[in-house]
């Protein structure tokens, strides 16, 4: 029996944002996210204190889904980052770090939140216009005709997940595999509505990463199949294998979910009737020269034997998740009736093989048109494999987003510093009428803009975990990292060799300045130079769509939180 409890009155917290507890929890969350960010990010171990599974990770999706926060305002922030990750897979930490830092910076300003929101919205629109314009100096266009940029994109995703524990050859190997798998999923004959195929990740744990491989077609795990025997599969005249795909159970069990009753006379077995019907189906399959039968559910042993005797291969228990790629790959329509088989339901395959990887046996279906492929992903242990799988899925998603919008942004903190210097430069010559539109003064605008730029720069700074200096140059506005242990007065050009994204070398004097130095942030005189981007080999690139959306979502969420004036918490 349920106990009746008196309803508690709701908790009314006014002035929620000025409370000390919020700034403490916010800065804690901010520190957690910042310390995870980037290729040199620190790993987090998540466990629940009573033993069991331990998750070692530095990815926002893994951390945020397991973290519980006490402050309701922070749960809004976390939900927003999680929603972003579920849409774009990438740039979750970027969004989280930027959002925290925007809130902290804006809160410390002595400007009404309403004004802050209007101004920051204007700043965001400046950024977005710039990012979408041709003149944007921090984006590169992706040419799908050459592999370099694509490889850079995938490599950046993999290297930014240090918990995968990959060394350089492993990164290179996986990068090519992921790209290969992606190219498999692009259909060869593009009509007006091209639909990308699917890459299915097959787990193989306990092997080296370099053992991973990608295969065209599908792998169905079948423990009982014998490896030794050569496969005798019937082929049609055009040397193809005809496949029938069933989504209805062929177990011969009776199931009647309908209402109403069925009365059966003594001595009549409906099971036999069902089985006879199944065998009839078998006969028709034989007549139609089908070579392979795949069933989502269970096939009756008698039918299986019958099919085997007629040299038809039968695979059952394929599972719901494989049905869609199977029908996409073979062109067959899943059959839901054992009473009528239409010849138009059948599909075709190029070949069927039996393969074995690390003590697992698979039936390998090889299609004519490879829009579906399988990535056999190996890693040493469970935790690292989970992390690697997430990284691979992210990379796959990033490639899909990039094919829709063939652009990429410079990584390694360069986009952030470049945008910050662009904004600082841009707001110098803003007309008075725009201030009037926003109902604010020039000073207020500059205060907010400064907070915005410092937040962007702090994201770039959080890539650095070793205590060295972070610089920006006054020509391109890129981000440069100085190794730790050098005094900050030395000649910068001796200490830096490459900028964060790797596009600029330190050959010319680029007039470096400390980012977030004590002297305040420098304002570039004259326009930022636009580097005619020649994609070098090891460039750090970020997904354009994910980062743009992350930037917008971070600002919108920060605005949302700044706008909260009170919290009503139902305590029941």
């Amino acid at each position, binding site marked *: 029996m349920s106990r009746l409890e008196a309803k508690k009155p709701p908790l009314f917290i006014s002035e929620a944002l000025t409370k000390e507890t919020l700034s403490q929890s916010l800065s804690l969350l901010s520190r957690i996210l910042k310390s995870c960010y980037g290729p040199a990010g620190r790993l987090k171990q998540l466990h629940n204190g009573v033993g069991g599974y331990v998750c070692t990770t530095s990815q926002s999706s893994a951390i945020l889904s397991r973290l519980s926060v006490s402050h309701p305002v922070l749960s809004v922030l976390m939900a927003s980052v999680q929603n972003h990750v579920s849409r774009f897979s990438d740039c979750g930490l970027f969004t989280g770090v930027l959002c925290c830092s925007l809130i902290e910076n804006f809160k410390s300003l002595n400007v009404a939140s309403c004004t802050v929101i209007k101004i920051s919205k204007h700043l965001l629109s400046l950024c977005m216009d710039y990012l979408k314009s041709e003149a944007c100096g921090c984006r590169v266009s992706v040419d799908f005709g050459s592999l370099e940029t694509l490889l850079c994109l995938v490599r950046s995703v993999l290297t930014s997940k240090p918990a995968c524990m990959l060394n350089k050859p492993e990164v290179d190997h996986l990068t090519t595999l992921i790209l290969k798998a992606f190219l498999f999923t692009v259909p060869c004959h593009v009509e007006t509505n091209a639909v990308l195929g699917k890459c299915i990740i097959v787990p193989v744990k306990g092997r080296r990463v370099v053992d991973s491989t990608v295969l065209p077609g599908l792998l169905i795990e079948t423990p009982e199949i014998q490896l030794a025997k050569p496969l005798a599969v019937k082929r049609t005249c055009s040397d193809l294998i005809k496949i029938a795909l069933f989504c209805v159970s062929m177990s011969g069990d009776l199931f009647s979910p309908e209402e109403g009753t069925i009365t059966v006379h003594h001595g009549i077995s409906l099971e036999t009737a069902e089985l006879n019907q199944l065998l009839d189906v078998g006969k028709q399959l034989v007549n139609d020269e089908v070579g392979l039968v795949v069933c989502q559910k269970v096939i009756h042993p008698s039918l299986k034997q019958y099919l085997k005797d007629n040299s038809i291969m039968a695979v059952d228990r394929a599972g719901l998740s494989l049905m869609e790629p199977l029908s996409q790959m073979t062109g067959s329509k899943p059959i839901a009736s054992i009473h009528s088989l239409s010849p138009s339901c059948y599909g075709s395959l190029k070949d069927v093989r039996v393969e074995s990887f690390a003590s697992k046996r698979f039936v390998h279906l090889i299609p004519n048109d490879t829009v579906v492929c399988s990535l056999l992903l190996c890693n040493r242990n469970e935790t690292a494999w989970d992390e690697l799988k997430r990284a691979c899925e992210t990379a796959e998603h990033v490639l899909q987003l990039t094919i829709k919008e063939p652009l990429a942004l410079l990584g390694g903190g360069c986009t952030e510093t470049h945008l910050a210097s662009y904004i600082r430069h841009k707001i110098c010559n803003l007309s008075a009428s725009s201030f009037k539109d926003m109902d604010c003064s020039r000073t207020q605008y500059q205060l907010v803009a400064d907070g915005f730029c410092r937040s962007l720069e702090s994201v770039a700074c959080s890539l650095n975990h070793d205590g060295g200096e972070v610089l920006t140059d006054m020509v391109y506005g890129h981000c440069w990292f100085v190794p730790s242990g050098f005094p900050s007065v030395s000649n910068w050009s001796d200490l830096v060799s490459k900028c964060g994204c790797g596009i600029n070398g330190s050959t010319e004097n680029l007039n470096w300045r400390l980012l977030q130095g004590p002297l305040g942030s420098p304002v570039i005189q004259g326009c930022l130079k636009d580097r005619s981007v020649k994609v070098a080999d090891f460039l750090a690139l970020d997904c354009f769509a994910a980062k743009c959306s992350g930037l917008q979502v971070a600002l*919108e969420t920060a605005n949302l939180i700044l*706008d909260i004036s009170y*919290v009503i918490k139902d305590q029941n």
Partner: protein
Amino acid sequence: MASRVDVGRLAQEAAALAGAVRGALGPRGGRALLVRPTGGALLTRDGRRLLEALSLEPPTARMMAACACSHRAATGDGAKTFVLLLAGVLGGLRAAGGGGGLRRALRAFEAQVLERAVAGGLRRHLLSALPGREAALEAALEAYLCGRLGPGERRRLARLCGEYCRRCAPGARPQALRLLGRRFPQLHAAVPGLPVASSRVLPGLVLPRDFAAYCPAGGELRAVLVTQPLRPPLAGPGGRLLVGSEGRYRASLRWVSSRTEALVKHLQSNSVKLLLSSAKQEEEVIYYAKLYGVSVVECLSSEEVALICEITGVSPYVPFGDNAHGEIAETAVATFCRPLLLGSKRCVHIGFTSVCAFQPHCLILCGPVDGVNEQHAAALQGAFIMLQQLFKRVDRSEECKADGESRNEAADVCSWHSSATQKQLVVENISCNSNRVSEQQLKARRDETETQNAEPDLQGSENPACVQTNLQIPSNPISRVKGFNVATEGDGSSRDLQKPQAKRERPGDVTESYKSDLLTDNQENYGPAVSAAHNANIVAACERLDVGKDLEKSSCNIAPFKHEKSCVSTAQSYSSSLIEAGSVLPVGGYFEILLHYYIQYYAKQCQQPEVTVISNVVADALLTIPKSLHRTTERNSFTKFYLEAINALRKNQPLPMNEKGLESVYCKYQLVVSVLHCVTQLLSIDLIIGVKRPLQKIEDNDSDDDF
């Protein structure tokens, strides 16, 4: 347990409520984060949500919240303002000492001061939204959304909502606007995780589920709506299948299968390419649909089915009829039907061809978190309700008409309200003197003339008067007219009255029903003598009106019955309504300042000291709203605003208005009236009695069974 209720306690409770909602008021107000018991967060600035979330304990405070919410439900706006104004009035009454005299004076205030202030003063300042309808619509929309959305996204959403309105309801037809307000939950889709800037308007409908079977089809296609499974059951519900042999069993299974196939084939032969089903269909149906190139969408909600029926004008197709081979008549036409990826969810996107004024479009709302999308959707739905109010008007009819109005509204939404107004009506009818009767008669007649005037307007479908008439249909005119007939039956002299009335009778004519209602009351209370005179009077008026529209003549006609006071008020403005349809004012407290000024102005002319006290209380309470609106700006901005406005009024200059947004004066006026009613009601309570048993609502329609 019983506890006393006094003004002090009420004022205290109202002030606490006002404190809770004040932070979210106006364009500079902030959001509230509501945390549900499940941990889900909802962001809102909606007064109704806030009041509900507070889950109040004291019954009187709950009543205040309920009144505010019912006002909000009827007009789509103003729950927070309601609470603030209520707190102001109650606070003022407490300062004035409370007492029964003041309570009675509230009624008199409404009749003698408030209506005059509106008619004599406020009316001059009103702007009309009728010319440039769509522009005004957008200005009202933006102002409305300013009060419910954060400063970052309001402009964008107002523009989007304006575009949505334009595309869905070209020409802002009230019929289409109403459908929009009613069906908005089905007409929008929310995508969390994307920036608000990605929100957009799509043509057609979006059903938030994937195709069960999708067969690409180009060009225009026909769709069929079904509500039952297409596969015939082996043994029907309650039926019994007798299996005599294995062969028979297999044959019957085969029959079921072939029957399903035949049905789908029949759809295909009628060139139906899309099957919309509210029931879950069997795998077999999906399989055959795929074979025959019919796309299937299943598990539609009943609201979605209703919406599709409304837009396309079709009714669900019944497959097991006799016409299994005939043509399917009930097909909807869609220009396209394709999958749509919203966020990471696959949806169905169908472009139905509409048969009504409403052009189906879907609003895709994007926001970083679900809570924001919910806030936006709620705000937009409220906006559509508000837009419908924009073209309503308030008729001049002092007590009776006001009661009638609020009763009509109350019938829809507000149980508190309705009981209160009905009670008042009864009290009034008993305590009325004969002067009052004639006054009411006069009003009734005037209302009638007004309807007459409005008649030519009613014909034009574009005319705003339509809004009013249509919206008041729920008051059930027929039954009331019936009641009237019964009442007059014993009264020979009034027989002839029925004729002109019947002539002008039409469904939805509210004034008529109201009048007959009034007649019934009068006859019951005062007997044949008065009513005979009364009826004769109306007949005379009707005759006059049938001939022409000369109102002055008709008012002279009944001069003997007239009371002095009502004569004055008729002379002031006899020809038009109190607030014209489509009247608007700029936002930002102008309505309150104006009303404040004119209430004080007319209160000076009032002889009764208690009414003067009330007038001052209400006038001061009205100022709390602009005060709260100016709360977060720099200091003294309210004083500045106030002095500027009042000086301009004293010098008879136009007000210095620099706000672009507009608000409906109808809503604002209704708000003041509702607050006054709520105060009256609260003050009438003297004791709160706690009972152990749950209170059961008395169902009104129980008695219907007796007929």
